[in-house]
């Protein structure tokens, strides 16, 4: 077999074939053994992505180890990269050594991961205020609609306002129930059409990029 076949045609054919199989399982009534095999296929991807994790770990070390080693570089950079690697290794060792429900792992998780994970979402509330200050300006008709709709729904969501002025809530609710619904529907149908067309392009091996990297 030529190297082009091995490198490009076979992987593309595998993807198309899998597409056909999984489609067939959905649309056609099949014997149980076959549909079992196909649900097994779904599990395969989970296993495959586990193997990809090793590559990712290598990527992380490839970025941070040289940074730690680089003499003469910014001291704080070196220390931070070292800390990242250390805490990563500790988490892995504790997680594998003691298992995840253990008190040791829970300590790391509850006290280091959870507060920062909440922190990301919390800090976004601040940045939302900042971004809205910069971008929410009624420059055009469209932008005006955006601002007015946003304002109506935000005030609708304010528990005090709906308690004091009950009818105000109906304005925001109208935005949610009329343009909120119809705009979503138009968007969703459009995306649905796009997704199916994408699937057909993959069947026809026109979307090669995720497999071969080429357009």
């Amino acid at each position, binding site marked *: 077999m030529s190297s082009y076949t091995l490198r490009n045609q076979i992987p593309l054919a595998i993807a198309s074939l899998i597409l056909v199989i999984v489609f067939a399982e959905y649309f056609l009534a099949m014997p149980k053994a076959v549909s079992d095999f196909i649900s097994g296929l779904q*599990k395969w991807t989970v296993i495959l992505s586990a193997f990809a994790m090793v590559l990712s770990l290598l990527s992380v070390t490839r970025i941070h180890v040289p940074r730690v080693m680089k003499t003469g570089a910014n001291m704080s950079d070196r220390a931070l990269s070292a800390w990242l690697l250390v805490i990563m290794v500790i988490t892995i060792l504790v997680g594998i050594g003691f298992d995840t429900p253990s008190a040791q792992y*829970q300590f790391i998780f509850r006290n280091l991961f959870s507060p920062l994970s909440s922190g990301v979402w919390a800090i976004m509330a601040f940045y939302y205020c900042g971004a*809205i*200050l*910069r971008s*929410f300006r*009624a420059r055009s008709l469209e932008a005006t609609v955006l601002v007015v709709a946003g304002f109506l729904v935000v005030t609708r*969501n304010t528990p*005090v306002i709906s308690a004091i002025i*009950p009818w105000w809530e109906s304005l925001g609710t109208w935005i949610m129930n009329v343009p909120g619904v119809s705009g979503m529907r138009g968007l969703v149908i459009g995306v649905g059409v796009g997704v199916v067309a994408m699937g057909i392009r993959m069947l026809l091996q026109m979307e090669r990029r995720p497999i071969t990297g080429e357009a």
Partner: protein
Amino acid sequence: MTEKSEKQDLTTRLERLDARYVYLFFAALLIIPIVVPFGLPILVTSPTRDFYDYVEKNVGKGDRVLIWGTMTTGWWPTEYRPSIVAVSQHLFNRGAKLYYISDGAEDPLLVDTVFGMIDKGPAKYGVDYVSLGYYAGGEVALSAFAKDVYSLVKTDYYGTPVDQLPMMKEVKTAKDFKFVMHVTGSPAEWLLRQYKTPYGIDCGWVGSSGMVGIYMPYYASRQVVGFVCGLRGGAEYETLMKRPGIGLASTDAMSAGHLYFALIMIFANIVYYIGRKERKKQ
């Protein structure tokens, strides 16, 4: 002349206002009601009421309910915790059998905290409720579970093999469940694609606040029985159950934050409007 340029300076300065002032006021405004709450009343919305009514009327003793989690810890404390605790409590009260499972990595730990927060009554682990742990694969895992429970689940979260859990003998596929509920902040359609469409099982969502707009169309077309979203949903559910909890404790701060956000919108546009007028004059 000088007066005019000073005024212009002010508008330009306001237009380019340092965002840090905005942050500072925001923080101050939230801290006050947290320390000194006012205790204002709230309104119950119809999706929450329908969800409650569904559980109250249709879920009875021994009905099997699947609770699939796709949560993130970041959202957990206010987005999911109030509603999932309230809903779980309600389901426990109704005597349903609860199967907790998830594809979000941290979810089993969160489910543990739910068990710690509710009054389980006579319910026993393995007989009336079970935590099946975490399975990567997102929608794929959801669909695999629907097709064949045992192809995905071999042990529960604590490592007990499933054949030692009495309640696991009752389920083989999605058809064995009365009601499926997805606790999620993002992929709304999974449940419909994998449970509602192929098996016709009643579905409901417990979501983050941002999902209300997304869920609305599906609720409007009656594809789901209802949904309970975010802190406010939790507070509403607590009101319906007449059991005040974490949801109702935070509503005042919520009011303050929302008002501030609305004021910023007005402020940004007033400044922009004046600035534009000034520029036009020139």
